[in-house]
């Protein structure tokens, strides 16, 4: 899916599938209200400042921390791999699949694995792959990508899920949400117990202790990382935290930002494979440290602010643009505000065009971001760079030049003002493309009978009273 098609896809979705807009709006507003309440009852401002500072420090010394993490992980008995992009990750996974004769893999929600096309790769190796997060499971059944970082299936209504489960799992057409969840649980329980491989992402990786930290509400991540013989954690290199103690704020801030909870229902702190005296847990734990565009973003001082992101989804929930469609029209793994600035940072502004224009710059995202990523400022930066690189609509530069000429010459401005009144219907036209973009869904604009700068001549000498 080309990102370029965002405007068309968004328009089609809004006009043809109004139920999506309704589901997404409802869910996002619900998340956002919970977030607002959860921020209000915690020292959110101090935490956000701290979290931003910790991540900025980490990124400024990232190479050292990566090496430290690697050393601790290795001491803990974890096998560490490095990957520049999807091919490296596929190679590592392929070797593990062969070495362990993996036939079945269970997956705990990981946005990074979406970036890397892990499912398709494993399936091509003959491995059955099961998404185990309920939302991910739903969209896997439906054959769709996630629509939201935290709630991948928020665009789906209960009715739609009922239909899907009835078709695929044989549940009754009027099954309750509990019954649907129970069907998914039963189906997946067997997979957990028989899978040889569990794949997860990581919310954090503590450099100081080599601890892989995962946060969730369902328990599927704990199961995926505890039951299969092998656990592979895919970790973006920006996911590190310097100190074990940093978790105290990050775990709370993440949960409060994402869903308004004081902490995720289940937090896994994984220090390696099963140890002596333990009765279960994986025999092998692998951590794959993944670049996939992140070092390019890091090299770009301004854009590198996106690397603080902890994928809480708060900016999506707060975003009035996102709320009209959910994530699908964006055509990128990450959607909404963070997607609009991650896409150009990871893919370049050409490929990401025009996602960074899909914003009114209303600023709601920056207000909620737990690590204070200045998303509107970054959107402006990308727009500027795109303009510099000539990534423009046809005629755009010429129009902007003409507009600038008129603005710096007040006489030209006033002439234009007169001209507009000489053709009073011009702004209501259905034929001029730019005007039509306005008038197709809105009534045309009517200028005031006389502009203020003319009225001023009449009132300038008025005295008070």
């Amino acid at each position, binding site marked *: 899916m080309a990102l370029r098609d965002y405007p068309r896809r968004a328009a089609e979705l809004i006009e043809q599938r109004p139920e999506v807009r309704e589901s997404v709006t409802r869910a996002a507003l619900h998340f956002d209200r919970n977030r607002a309440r959860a921020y209000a009852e915690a020292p959110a401002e101090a935490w956000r*400042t701290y979290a931003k500072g910790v991540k900025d420090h980490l990124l400024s010394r990232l190479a050292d921390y990566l090496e430290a993490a690697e050393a601790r992980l290795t001491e803990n008995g974890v096998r560490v791999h490095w990957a520049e992009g999807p091919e490296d990750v596929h190679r590592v996974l392929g070797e593990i699949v062969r070495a362990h004769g993996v036939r079945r893999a269970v997956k705990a929600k990981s946005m990074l694995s979406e970036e890397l096309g892990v499912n398709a790769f494993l399936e091509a190796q003959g491995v059955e792959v099961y998404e185990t997060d309920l939302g991910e499971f739903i969209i896997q059944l439906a054959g769709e990508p996630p629509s939201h970082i935290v709630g991948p299936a928020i665009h789906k209504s209960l009715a739609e899920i009922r239909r899907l489960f009835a078709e695929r799992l044989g549940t009754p057409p009027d099954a309750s949400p509990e019954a649907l969840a129970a069907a998914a649980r039963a189906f997946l329980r067997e997979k957990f117990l028989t899978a040889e491989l569990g794949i997860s992402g990581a919310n954090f990786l503590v450099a100081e202790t080599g601890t892989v930290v995962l946060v969730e509400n369902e328990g599927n991540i704990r199961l995926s990382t505890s039951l299969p013989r092998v656990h592979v954690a895919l970790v973006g290199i920006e996911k590190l935290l310097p100190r074990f103690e940093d978790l105290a704020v990050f775990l709370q801030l993440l949960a409060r930002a994402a869903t308004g909870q004081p902490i995720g229902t*289940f937090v896994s*702190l994984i220090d390696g494979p099963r140890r002596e005296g333990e009765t279960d847990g994986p025999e092998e734990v692998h951590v794959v440290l993944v670049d996939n565009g992140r070092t390019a973003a890091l090299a770009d001082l301004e854009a590198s602010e996106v690397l603080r992101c902890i994928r809480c989804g708060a900016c999506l929930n707060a975003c009035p643009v996102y709320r009209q469609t959910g994530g699908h029209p964006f055509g990128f793994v990450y959607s909404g505000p963070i997607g609009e600035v991650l896409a150009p940072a990871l893919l370049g502004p050409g490929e990401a065009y025009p996602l960074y224009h899909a914003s009114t710059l209303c600023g709601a995202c920056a207000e909620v971001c737990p690590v204070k990523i200045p998303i509107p400022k970054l959107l402006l930066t990308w727009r500027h760079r795109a303009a510099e690189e000539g990534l423009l609509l046809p005629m755009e530069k010429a129009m902007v030049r003409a507009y600038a000429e008129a603005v710096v010459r007040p006489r030209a401005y006033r002439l234009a003002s007169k001209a507009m009144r000489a053709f009073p219907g011009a702004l209501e036209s259905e034929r001029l493309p730019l005007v039509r973009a306005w008038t197709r869904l809105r009534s045309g604009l009517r200028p005031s009978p006389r502009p203020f700068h003319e009225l001023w001549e009449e009132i300038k000498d008025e005295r008070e009273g």
Partner: protein
Amino acid sequence: MSARDRVLYRVRRALTGRPEAALPAVIAPEERDPEEAFALFRTRLEAAGARVARLDSLEEARGFLAEAESGLQSAWAGAGVPEALRPRLPLAEPERARLGVSLALAGVAETGSVVLTAREGRRGQLLVPRHLVWLFAGDLFGSLLEALRRLRGGGVSALALHSGPSKSADIGQIMVKGVHGPGELWVGVLTFDSVGLEASDRSVNLEERLKGLTGRVLTTKENQTLTVVGLSKPGNTLYLALANGKKEGLPVKYVKKAVELIEAGISPQGPKELGEAVAKALGLKGPPKAGYLWAILHALGYV
């Protein structure tokens, strides 16, 4: 060049000339006294849909357990659960058990969490529909930061914080419990110390109980933390890891003697008195690592 070298090289090149950003100091959490901590712990867990009971005697604890067991056919229990608090139901593998009983390493009031160790067995914490977790009131921390400080480097493959029953709102924003993990979380906070457990536990082999302490993080009276690493193979020494990274071995015979003396009726007021009594009984010269001994006996419920 390997992928490792290339990624690290690119990171270094990306950061060339970039000044180091200062690392902020860790934020000191709000202080809470034990009463406040318990109140918050309960509020948080209950808000998350868990059941919390404060249990002031062994009878109460047994009652809570019986309630959790009622109507069920089988149970699973973690290795560290004291004998008196183990389920009476027939034991079963976690795949089939309807109830799981665990002993928490710690509790966190700020987040409403119990901290579980992989040493107890992870499946029993996850596959059962109902999960009962015992928490010694003395192991409840006011803040997550304090708990993390105590728990770090506990020598197990994984720790987990459980802060409520398994849940999901992925189906039309409707909250459903028990999606993958336990749909019920029961937390019993044990405020009574020692005597009750001791009385009922007399029959249990001391060695087994010491093994059961493996992975527990204890605090001495002087507020020093130590982690129980485990019992030596022949069972003569209990290894402890101190906060400063040092290892200590505590002869099991000291513990045995101390238990004997207490069961015989002495009631030492503190580590010093206990140490002196043990030293005298065993004919030792000085008091035998009395601080650690005290902490171990405390964990076993004797002092």
